[in-house]
Every structure is written in C-alpha cells, then in structure tokens.
C-alpha cells in the first residue's frame, strides 16, 4: 500500500440532497461502475484527492527504488543481480505509468516531482527503513510487495480510468516481484546458519513496518468514507492488514521463521489471526520525517534530479535545434 493516510479533500460524503446536479450525475456513474475519464466533469475535491493519492503512489515507486537499489551492486550471483535489477527497473516503470495518470488530471510530472523533492508530498513510510543484509531484499519482495499487491489488486477497479489502467498494467508486472522475494528469502531460510540468521533478522525488522504500510485504522475516518464513496479506495486499512497477516503467517511458518509477535495466534472464532498492532508513535515519527532513512532518501532523489538537469536541458536543446534546422531546410527546398 503505497498511498497512506490520503486525506480526501472536502468535508466528507455528501448526501444526495446536498449534491449539485452535476455531482449527482458523477456519483451515479461511479455507483454504476462507469469509469471517469480525464475530460469528464469531476468535482474539484475528487481531482485534488486523486492527485494526492496517485502522486504519493508514484513517489513511493520512485523512492522505493533506493532501498533495493542499495543491493544491486552486491547481489550474490549474476542471476540474482539480473532479477533484482529487473525488479527495481519495473518500479521506475510503475512510477512512470502513475505519473502519466496524474498528468491527465492537469499536473505535470516535473511539478509533481518538485512537490516530492521539497517535501510537500509524501511517499510510503516503508521506504524510510534501511536494507541491511541480503535477506532484506527477499523480505522486501515478500512482505512489502505482498502488502502493496493487497492494495493494488482492488485498485484495478478504481473509478478513475487512467489510474485503473495503470494499476492493471502494474499488477500484471508486479506478480513476479513478490515471488522473487519469497524465493530469495526461502533460499536463505534453508541455507547456512548465518543465512538463516539474516533471514530472521530481516523478518524481525520488516514485520511491523510492513503492517504500518496499511496506515492506522480508518474505520471512523470521514476522509476514507469519501474516498470509498468515490471508489478511489476500495477496502479499509484494517481489512487489508488482517488479510495480509492471514496470508503471511503460513508463509513464514513454511520458512521456519518466527514472526516477531508473541501475541500472534489463530482465532478460531473470528477465522483470522489475532496480532499486535505496530507502534503507531514510531509510524508518526517516520511520517514526520524522523524515520531511519528519510533524510538520506530525499537527499538521494534531490541529487539525482539536480545532477540530471543539464542532461534534460541538453537533450531538449538539441531536439529544438534539429527541429529548427529541419524547418529551415524545408523552407529552402520550397523556395
């Protein structure tokens, strides 16, 4: 779940009586699962909320390249290196698709990028945690991508056409990410004692941050209610978190790894696992910029952007020169 705590713009869900005629037509379309397309009328709050959500999602993909990119040059085999590189490359691609979806709402990629770089927009808290041993690469694929997929699969049905199409493409490509992660950590869980230790260490550090990816409980949130009425959010955070825990526990058991939660146990009555909540004060610290890697991650992105300016300008200048030369040549030919 790469979009956390998106505050829907506006004051919450309006009743039909409070809606204008245009708003009613709009809401009817959403209720009938008719996609909203870029040139359709939409409430300003819907547009603003979507830009926040798609933007945060895109930024998460881009910043998300960094913790895994951290291990590309140290991957232990040629095959692992290729797999990891292809995966991190996919994330760049996913960021690109999402920025394009945001552009259809009237915000250019450069504008929205600058909002990330100067801290006006956020990205998922998870990418502010470090990757410290090779098993972290497995854990990120298994847990982080696993959590992300949980959110992204329903979002394929989201009401905004370009966002929905981007999510469909992303989900199709994403399916290998979680599998490669599980495969990598499994190799270690079944390996030497040191490798096992790395795998357990990775799970210890990534378990609670993964649970935080779904965001705090939003059962009572008016913002979530609005986003759900607009179908840009499909499930509550708690539903998805529970689903994630239920899915992940048996996978950890298969690996013989221990989930770092003494309270974790199967609840026959509920038909779900009971589990401990993550430390939400830590979550809010990370969101505020005090996670282990916030400063470094943003500095990295800023440096790449600043260092790249002469390249972007140079290639554009060349394209313009060529265009000018072509039209000059065409003029001469015409005379």
């Amino acid at each position, binding site marked *: 779940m790469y979009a956390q705590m998106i505050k829907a713009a506006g004051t919450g869900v309006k009743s039909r009586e409070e809606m204008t005629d245009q708003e009613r037509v709009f809401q009817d379309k959403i209720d009938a699962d008719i996609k909203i397309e870029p040139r359709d009328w939409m409430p300003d709050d819907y547009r603003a909320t979507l830009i926040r959500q798609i933007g945060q999602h895109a930024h998460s993909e*881009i910043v998300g*390249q*960094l913790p895994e*990119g951290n291990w*590309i*040059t*140290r*991957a*232990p*085999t*040629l*095959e*692992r*290196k*290729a797999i990891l*590189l*292809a995966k*991190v*490359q996919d994330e*760049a*691609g996913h*960021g*690109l698709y999402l*920025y394009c979806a945001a552009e259809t709402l009237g915000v250019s990629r450069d504008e929205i990028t600058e909002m990330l770089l100067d801290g006006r927009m956020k990205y998922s808290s998870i990418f502010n945690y470090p990757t410290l041993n*090779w098993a972290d690469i497995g854990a990120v694929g298994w847990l982080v991508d696993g959590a992300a997929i949980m959110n992204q699969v329903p979002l394929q049905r989201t009401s905004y056409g370009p966002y929905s199409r981007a999510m469909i493409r992303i989900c199709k490509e994403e399916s290998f990410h979680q599998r490669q992660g599980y495969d*990598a950590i499994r*190799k*270690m869980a079944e*390996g*030497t004692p*040191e*490798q096992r230790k790395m795998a357990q260490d990775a799970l210890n550090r990534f378990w609670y941050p993964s649970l935080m990816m779904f965001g705090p409980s939003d059962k009572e949130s008016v913002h979530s209610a609005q986003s759900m009425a607009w179908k840009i959010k499909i499930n509550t955070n708690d539903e998805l978190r529970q689903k994630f825990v239920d899915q992940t526990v048996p996978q950890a058991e298969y690996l013989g790894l221990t989930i770092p939660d003494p309270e974790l146990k199967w609840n026959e009555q509920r038909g779900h696992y009971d589990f401990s909540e993550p430390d939400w004060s830590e979550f809010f610290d990370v969101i505020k910029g005090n996670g282990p890697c916030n400063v470094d991650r943003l500095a*990295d992105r800023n*440096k*790449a*952007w600043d*260092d*790249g*300016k*002469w*390249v*972007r*300008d*140079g*290639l*554009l*200048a*060349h*394209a313009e*020169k060529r265009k000018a030369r072509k039209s000059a040549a065409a003029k001469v030919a015409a005379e």
Partner: protein
Amino acid sequence: MTREDAFLQFLLRMGDNTLILGHRVSEWCGHAPVLEEDIALANTALDLIGQTQMWLGLAGEIEGAKSADDLAFLRDAWDFRNVLLVEVPNGDFGRTLMRQFLFDAWHSIMLGRLMTSSDERVAAIAEKASKEVSYHLERSGDTVVGLGDGTEESHARMQEALDYLWPYVGEMFAGDAVDAEMAAAGIAPDPAGLREEYDALVGRVLGEATLTIPESRFAHKGGRDGRMHTEHLGHLLTSMQWLQRAYPGASW
C-alpha cells in the same frame, strides 16, 4: 600458449568486459536524470549481465567445471581480463554515456565479426548479443549527439568526458599472442583490424555531436592482459564479490 589457453583468455576478455560494464551501468539504477533514461540504462545493464552469463559460462566449461558465478565472484583483480575503459568510474551521466558509446561501437563491430567465428558456440553468443548491442549503440550514439550538440554546458561536459576517456580507447585494438592464436584459428578477428571501421563510425557520430577527438593516440593498457588494472577495479570487486567471499560455499 596452447589454443585452449588462448581460447579461455579470449572468452574471459569478452565476458569480463560485459560483466564489469554491466556492473557499472547498474550503479545508475534509481539515479538517472529522468525516468525514461533510468529504465533504458537498466535494460542495457540487463543485456550485459545476460551476455556475461553466456561468455563466462562457456569460459567456465573450458576451464573445467566452473560456473559463470565462480568466475565472476571468486577471481581476484589480476585474473580479470576486461579493458580498462569499462572499469573507470561512471562520473556524470555524460561520461557514462560517452564510455558506453565508445565501448558499444567496438562491441558491435567485434560481435559482427564473431558471428562468423569458426567456433559455433562463439558465433551463437555473438548472434544473440549483436542484436542487443546494435540497439545499445543506436541509443548511446544518439545521446552523445544530443548532449554534444545540446546546450553549452552539455557540450562542455561531453567534450570533457571524451578527453578523459579517449586514452582508454586504444587498448581495445592492441593485439597480442592470444589474439594471434584466435585469429589463426578463425575464432576471433585480430583487434587491430577493427580500428579503421571503428574510427569511421566514431568519427561520424562525434562529428555530428560537434565534439573534437583528441589528437593523442596514447593508450593506457593492462586490462585485457591483467598486467595492471586501474585502482578502481578492486573497489568494484570488493562490493560485487562481498557476499560470496564472506560466506564461502553458501548458495543464494
């Protein structure tokens, strides 16, 4: 030197070039000037890693029961046979793309010749790799032209990159006993014989890029025979080989 010794050296030269350059290019992941370039660079790196698996895979067979991974992760710097050009640090994006272009130009000509190698395995690898490398060359060539003939700043940076890298070009064409043996066997061409075509290609693109090729033909050497690598290679290997070295015998 037996023919088999020479063949092994030849394969290591091909495979180490792609291994080290692929590694360097992969260092960009997540840091390129624009997303489209980030994705394109990763494609280039992935192609090079794939080619490494083929060249070093064959080298490992010849050497006897070694895998491409054994060769990549368990040799020390003096055993590496890549040209110095591919191990120099990335520098800015301009230097990375200039290095890529100078290498791609040689690589594409070389692979073209290897497609008619008397050794079928070599010809098959060259056939697959040459398709990938034609695209690399097209892309790096266009970028060098675009940045050379872009803004004043981009032009200056590309000229600086060319001046820095040019002394590393000559090594790709410096033949030795290994090459003579390979040429005699019809397995690979004499590298000196590729220079004319290379100069024509590189001259045309750099001309279009409004860049000036340095006059000096001085060439640093020592990579392809392993006699004297740059100081940079050791650092690259330190990260690349770390896990395999720290946990010997583990499988990943």
